[in-house]
């Protein structure tokens, strides 16, 4: 299964389109002032749907070194 | 404010002028900064029973425009540099087959895709020399929204009167700015339509011209059967390899414009009466130049503006006259030197000719012409 992952956002690039928010199966994300926010990281199942469809490469799953997690 | 007085965008005024002139057909392909002309035509034409079609590219847009005119409708197409380049082959067809129509080129920064949203006056020479072979050219260039309205009507009139494609040059600045237009100005302009044959249908000679050198033109479908071709042809319209026929055809094509220069050539002279120093400019640049002239006058310089409205054919006599009157002519254009070549050619015997150009996508402003004039006047 590889290293554990977490979802991260590049707020500089996010244009606030809301696509990731709408298609996140676990309702993890929210738009705040036109920029995405990882509102409920604990609910994230690392499915990658947000990463797949962000038009701006602004959200993705990042491998986290085990000890950091 | 009368309901004939409106705040219109330049491109909008162009369509209004075209409709006032009797446009019933528009075919084109969208391109910045001319797109509004297509969009407004699409909206307005069906409402008057006319037709709009968006073609697959500019080549087709030009071809369909010519086809529409042959079918008897006053026709127009609009584009910008890249599309104007593509239209060149069929523009030549329109010239040789003598098909009236109006081609608008809203100039933007070139070459190639260049600066698509920036103003430029880079297609002045292309309007004359863009298609292969010698051919007649009429090109006009207004400088205000009101004048866009009026001159568009004139373009249709000239196209119809002289049976030839007429090029309407605009630039991004005047095409996109909004200004007051009095649409009732059309009441002062006579609307002209092509001469249509009235004689017997049998034996109609589509390229046999009267003394005015303009043959009567029949609409397709009205019983005057004819053959139209882009090959060199005789008065019957059929191709010929005879040198005599070729000579006659070409001579008449050029001469029909030549002998009507007085009617075709329009220009504005501003504060030139007593001038010894002239700026030559057209389109948006001429507006800046007017401010410059006024400022120079305030300085006591006897400056004036010569503004060609008809770019082609060249206002040769007027320019020669000007060159004999003033010591110096500055030609200011948003390019690297185009119209100035022609001014030099006809004027350099009589006065100094200087060039001020700009090609960085920015409009030429009154201050920079002023500074340049001051430099030249030193």
């Amino acid at each position, binding site marked *: 299964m590889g290293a554990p992952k977490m979802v991260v956002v590049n707020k500089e690039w996010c244009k606030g389109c809301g696509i990731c928010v709408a298609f996140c199966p676990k309702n993890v994300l929210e738009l705040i002032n036109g920029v995405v926010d990882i509102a409920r990281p604990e609910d994230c199942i690392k499915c990658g749907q947000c990463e797949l469809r962000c038009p701006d490469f602004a959200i993705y799953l990042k491998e986290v070194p085990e000890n950091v997690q | 404010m009368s309901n004939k007085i409106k705040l219109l965008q330049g491109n909008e005024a162009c369509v209004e002028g075209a409709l006032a002139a009797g446009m*019933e*057909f528009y*075919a084109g392909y969208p391109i910045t900064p001319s797109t509004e002309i297509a969009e407004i035509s699409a909206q307005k034409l*069906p*409402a008057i*029973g006319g*037709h709009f*079609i968006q*073609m*697959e*590219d500019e*080549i*087709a847009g030009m*071809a*369909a*425009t*010519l*086809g*529409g*005119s*042959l*079918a*008897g*409708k006053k*026709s127009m197409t609009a584009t910008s540099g890249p599309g104007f380049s593509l239209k060149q*082959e*069929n523009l030549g*067809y329109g010239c040789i087959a003598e098909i009236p129509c109006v081609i608008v080129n809203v100039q933007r920064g070139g070459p190639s895709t260049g600066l698509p949203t920036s103003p430029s006056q880079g297609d002045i020479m292309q309007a004359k020399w863009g298609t292969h072979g010698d051919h007649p050219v009429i090109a006009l260039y207004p400088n205000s929204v009101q004048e866009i309205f009026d001159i568009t009507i004139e373009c249709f009139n000239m196209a119809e009167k002289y049976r030839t494609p007429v090029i309407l040059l605009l630039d991004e600045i005047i095409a996109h700015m909004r200004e007051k237009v009095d649409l009732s100005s059309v009441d002062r302009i006579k609307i002209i339509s092509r001469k249509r044959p009235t004689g017997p249908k049998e034996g109609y000679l589509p390229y046999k011209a009267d003394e005015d050198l303009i043959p009567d033109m029949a*609409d*397709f*479908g*009205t*019983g005057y*059967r*004819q*053959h*139209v*071709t*882009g*090959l060199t042809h005789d008065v019957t319209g*059929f*191709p010929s390899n005879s040198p005599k026929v070729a000579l006659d055809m070409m001579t008449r094509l050029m001469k029909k414009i030549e002998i009507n220069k007085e009617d075709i050539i329009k220009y504005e002279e501003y504060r030139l009466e007593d001038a010894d120093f002239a700026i030559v400019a057209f389109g948006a640049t001429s507006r800046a130049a007017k401010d410059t002239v006024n400022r120079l006058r305030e300085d006591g310089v006897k400056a004036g503006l010569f503004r060609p409205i008809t770019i082609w054919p060249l206002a040769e006599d007027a320019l020669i006259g000007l060159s004999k009157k003033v010591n110096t002519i500055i030609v200011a254009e948003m390019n690297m030197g185009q119209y100035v070549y022609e001014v030099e050619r006809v004027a350099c015997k009589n006065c100094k000719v200087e060039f001020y150009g700009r090609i960085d996508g920015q409009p030429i402003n009154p201050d920079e012409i002023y500074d340049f004039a001051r430099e030249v006047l030193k």
Partner: protein
Amino acid sequence: MNTSALVKEYFREEKLPHIWCPGCGHGIVMHAVVRAIDNLKLDPEKICIVSGIGCSSRASGYMNFNTLHTTHGRALAFATGVKMANPSLEVLVLTGDGDCSAIGGNHLIHAARRNIDITTIAFNNNIYGMTGGQYSPTTPTDSYGTTAPYGNIDKPFDLCNLAKAAGATYVGRSTAYYAKQLTTLVENGIKNKGFSFIEAVSSCPTYYGRKNKKGDAVEMMKSLKDDYIDIKIAEKKPELAESKILMGEFYNKPEEEYTEKYQKIIDLLKKEQ
């Protein structure tokens, strides 16, 4: 009407004989087109024939209607303008394989897509005749042309397939040999209110024939007989169709026509006024 009467009625007799080479199939195709017009008893004043540039496109000059000989490849674009500006005209486009599928390919697919009421007859001789025998988009693979001295590596278009995929509502193919069938297809194409495409397989003995050792005009005409089979026969007896090319009516599904749709907008706006 026999040929002589047909010539008097519909041709510019003083322009004949035409410039085509001895045995060139184009004359037969042009003849078939005019017979179709005659059969339909169309008003010649309302007919507009548009062509491009090529040997085939010279046809317009011989036919006594409103004729328009345009630039290479652009016949359909001009024709679209003519038809849009005056939908009461019956517009036919006579074109070559090069004219309509090389330089003019885009106009072909777009006219088809719009389903504008234009009947296009493509004189397909598998070569650029006018310019002296270069391969065209319909030259068969491995054939020779002056620009394919080692055999053509291009794959040819199936023009009928292409027109159909692009949106034509009437599509058919026949050959100069089957001149009667060709006439029928053109008739049906004209009757179809919409974009009709008829591939008229022609022959160029002078260039295609000579370059490819296809024999003289007679032998080429024999090929236009033997190499083709009607789609209806082929459907019934597939064994006969082996290594033959299909001809006949391939598609005939009328849809609402372009200028008629536009007229609806005009009418609607008139009502609103």
